[in-house]
């Protein structure tokens, strides 16, 4: 009897712990996915830098952030439901300091508005980061 009563008392606490662990696991999984996307983008950028895939000055990296990496980080934010509070976490996971990210984000947005070829390439990189 005593054992059963103990089990009943422990049950709500166990359920709460299970919910907390599930939430934490989800956060960790999302963070790992964002970091993986950033790693893929960095590898891709390195490959492009060594090749001949240059399309003019509008495709040059801004503050060390290339278009593929910008798209991958943008996709990483979308994985968090475009939650602005997660921006710092995702950029840090991609190894981009906040100050550099601000410069890069502003610059890439300007180029996207000014050159639709940049916008098209951004969309391609973004969708490939999702695949």
């Amino acid at each position, binding site marked *: 009897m005593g054992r059963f009563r103990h089990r009943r008392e422990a049950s709500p606490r166990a359920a709460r712990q299970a919910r907390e662990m599930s939430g934490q696991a989800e956060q960790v999984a999302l963070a790992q996915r964002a970091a993986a996307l950033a790693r893929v983008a960095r590898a891709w950028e390195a490959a492009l830098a060594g090749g001949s895939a240059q399309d003019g000055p509008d495709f040059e990296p801004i503050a060390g952030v290339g278009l593929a990496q910008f798209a991958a980080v943008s996709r990483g934010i979308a994985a968090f439901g475009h939650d602005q509070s997660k921006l710092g976490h995702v950029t840090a996971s991609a190894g981009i300091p906040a100050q550099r990210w601000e410069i890069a984000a502003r610059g890439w947005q300007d180029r996207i508005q000014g*050159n639709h070829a940049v916008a098209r390439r951004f969309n391609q990189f973004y969708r490939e980061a999702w695949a």
Partner: protein
Amino acid sequence: MSAVRSAPEVRRRATIVGMRQIAMVNFDVLMEFELTVLQDGMPPYPAISQQLVGPRQARQLGPGHTLDASVDPSNPAAVWLRLEDPAAQ
């Protein structure tokens, strides 16, 4: 994805990356727009919008144009170009 307007909506800017004619509906054209949606303080994202436009307006629009757009905050993929607002263009 077809965008459906619902309140409340948030205003964004969207750059047309590509567009194609899907169908004619009476004298209007059902167009599909490939967009890059720009958000203040947040990174952009791609979206597709299908909407009816007048034939004259369809000729005036093209890749590279950046217009005002409405976005459903609960579904950022639901984007609607505000073609009816001349000041938006």
